[in-house]
C-alpha cells in the first residue's frame, strides 16, 4: 500500500466519446425540435424551404443572435441583464448622432460600441463591486438608458445614415453570403469555442456554478462579473450598429421588449437562469427555434390572435421535451 500505487482501473472512464450524454444534451434536443419544426414547415408551406425565406429568417434574427451571445455569458455566470434592449437603442442613436456630426463610419461604430462599454461598466460595477441585485440594477439601467435615448434623439427618428454604411449590412462580400450572416456565424463560433475551451472564458461557468466555490478557488470573482456585463453590453451595442446599418435609421423605440424575447430564447436553448449551465450554441439554436416558429405562423397566415396561443404552447413544449427526456436524471 505505497502511495504511488494507483487504482485507476476502478475509476471508470468514458473512454472517449459519451454518446448517451450527447443524446440527452440540450443542444441536440433543440436541434431535433428545429428539425421537426422545419419538416413540419416544409409540409405546411411550399414557401418555407426557399432561399429567400431562409435568408429572411436568418437575417431577421441576426440582431437577437448577437444579443443572445452576450446574455448567455451573463446568465451562465449567474447574473441577468435586462438592459440589453436599451443598449441596442442607445448605440443606434449614438451612431446616428455621430453621422449627423459628420464623423466617419469607423468612428461612428466605435462611438456606438463605447456606449455599450459605458453601460456594461455601470451594470458590472453596481452588481459586482457594490453587490446589488442584478435584476433590479439592470431594470434600473434599462429605464435610465432608454431615457437617455429619448433625450439624445429628442424623440425624433434619425435617418441621415451614409449609404456606404447601409451597404455594409446589406451586402454580401464573401461567397455571396450576406455579411450579416457571416458576422453572426463568426461570432457564434468564436464565443462558443471560447466558452468551451478558453481558460479565461471558462471561468464564467465556474462563477455561475457556485460563486462561493469560485471565490475560494481563487477566481477574481468581482472582476470577472464586471467583464461579463461589459461583454454583454458591447455585444448589444454591436446589435445597435447592425440595426442602424440594416434599417438606415435610428428609432428611439427600437428593441423595446427585446430583453425578454432573447432571454426566453436563451433559456429554451438550455441556459439555466440560476447560472452554471448553458452554451452559446444552445442559445443560438434557441433563437433559431423561436424564429422558425414565428416564421411558420406568419407564412401560414395564422390569425394574429392565435399566434400568441401557438407560440406560448411551443415555448412550453420546448421545456417540456427537456423535462420528459431527462426525467429522473435531474430532479
Amino acid at each position, binding site marked *: *500500500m505505497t*502511495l504511488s500505487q*494507483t*487504482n*485507476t482501473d*476502478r*475509476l*471508470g*472512464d*468514458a473512454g472517449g466519446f*459519451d454518446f448517451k450524454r450527447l443524446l440527452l444534451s440540450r443542444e441536440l434536443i433543440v436541434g431535433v425540435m428545429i428539425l421537426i419544426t422545419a419538416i413540419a414547415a416544409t409540409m405546411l408551406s411550399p414557401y418555407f424551404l426557399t432561399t429567400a425565406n431562409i435568408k429572411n429568417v436568418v437575417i431577421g434574427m441576426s440582431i437577437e443572435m448577437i444579443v443572445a451571445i452576450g446574455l448567455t455569458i451573463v446568465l451562465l455566470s449567474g447574473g441577468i441583464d435586462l438592459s440589453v434592449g436599451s443598449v441596442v437603442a442607445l448605440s443606434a442613436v449614438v451612431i446616428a448622432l455621430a453621422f449627423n456630426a459628420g464623423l466617419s463610419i469607423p468612428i461612428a461604430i466605435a462611438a456606438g460600441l463605447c456606449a455599450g462599454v459605458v453601460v456594461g461598466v455601470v451594470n458590472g460595477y453596481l452588481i459586482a463591486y457594490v453587490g446589488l441585485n442584478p435584476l433590479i440594477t439592470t431594470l434600473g439601467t434599462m429605464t435610465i438608458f432608454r431615457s437617455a435615448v429619448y433625450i439624445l434623439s429628442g424623440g425624433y427618428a434619425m435617418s441621415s445614415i451614409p449609404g456606404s454604411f447601409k451597404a455594409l449590412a446589406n451586402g454580401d462580400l464573401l461567397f455571396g453570403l450576406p455579411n450579416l450572416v457571416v458576422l453572426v456565424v463568426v461570432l457564434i463560433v468564436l464565443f462558443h469555442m471560447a466558452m468551451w*475551451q*478558453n*481558460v*479565461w472564458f*471558462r*471561468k464564467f*461557468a*465556474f462563477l455561475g*456554478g*457556485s460563486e*462561493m*466555490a*469560485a*471565490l*475560494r*478557488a*481563487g*477566481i*477574481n*470573482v468581482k472582476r470577472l462579473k464586471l467583464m461579463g456585463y461589459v461583454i454583454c453590453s458591447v455585444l448589444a451595442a454591436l446589435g445597435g450598429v447592425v440595426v442602424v446599418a440594416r434599417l438606415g435609421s435610428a428609432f428611439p423605440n427600437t428593441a423595446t421588449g427585446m430583453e425578454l424575447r432573447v432571454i426566453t430564447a436563451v433559456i429554451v436553448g438550455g441556459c439555466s437562469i440560476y447560472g*452554471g*449551465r448553458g452554451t452559446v450554441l444552445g442559445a443560438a439554436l434557441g433563437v433559431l427555434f423561436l424564429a422558425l416558429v414565428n416564421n411558420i405562423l406568419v407564412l401560414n397566415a395564422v390569425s394574429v390572435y392565435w399566434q400568441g396561443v401557438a407560440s406560448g404552447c411551443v415555448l412550453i413544449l420546448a421545456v417540456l421535451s427537456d423535462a420528459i427526456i431527462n426525467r429522473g436524471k435531474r430532479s
Partner: protein
Amino acid sequence: MTAPNKVVEMTGIEKRFGPVEVLRGVDFELYENEVLALLGDNGAGKSTLIKTLSGYYQPDAGQIQIGGQAVSFGTPHEARDHGIETIYQDLALFDNLDVAANVFAGKEKVGGGWRKMLGFVDRKAMRNEAREAVSQMAINIPRIDQEVSAFSGGQRQCVAIAKSVMWGRKVVIMDEPTAALGVRETGKVLDLIRTLKSHNLSVIVIMHNIEHVMEVAERAIVMRSGTRRGTVNLNGPQDRESHDEIVKMLM
C-alpha cells in the same frame, strides 16, 4: 540545530460577527515543514481562524505574517498566490461539474502548441491528472466524468482533498479532511499528509479524532471559545502522555 523558521505567524487575531465574538485574540504559529493539528470543541473558532489565514475572512484585529512578511489578504485569491491552499469544512465544490473541473477550477491547464496561443484548455491532461490525484486516496469513484453532486459524502471529500494537495505550494490547510471518510480512505489521507510533509510543505489539519492526530501531527494547538487553550508537542501514536494532555484540554 537552529530554531525552525515560522512559515505562518498570526498574532492577536480577533474576529466578531455582529454581537458574537468568535476569536478573542488568538496567537498562532506554523513552522516550516511541520504538520500541525488544530483541535477544539465545536464552535471553538477553528474554522474561523483558518479562514482568516486563507483570506476568506478579514480579521478585525491582529497581524498575519507569511515567511516573516506582514500580509493582509483581501480575498482567497491573494492567499493562494502566497502558496496557501485550503480545503474548507463545507468543501465548496462545484456541484454541476465533474472531478477534473473541480480539481482544476480557476487554474485550468492550458494545452501546448496552438492551444497555448488560443488559451485553450487541455481536458485530457486535466482528466488524467485528476484521476491520478483521487486514486491516491483509494476512493471508489464509479465515473470520473460525472457531476460531483451525485457523489457520496466521502467521494466529495476526496475530490476536495485532491484539489488542495495538487495546488498547495507552501501551506496546505485541511479543515476536517477525514470527517466523512471510511477506515481505509482515512488511512490513505493520513499517508497523503505525510507525503506533503516529505515534499517540504507545511500542513495545518483540523481533526476531532485524537488517535488520527497522534498518528500524523507533530504539534497540536487546542482552542476553546475563541482563545488558544494551549499547545502540545506530539511524539508519535504511542505518546500517551500528550494524548491525555490533549484530552484534558478538550474537556
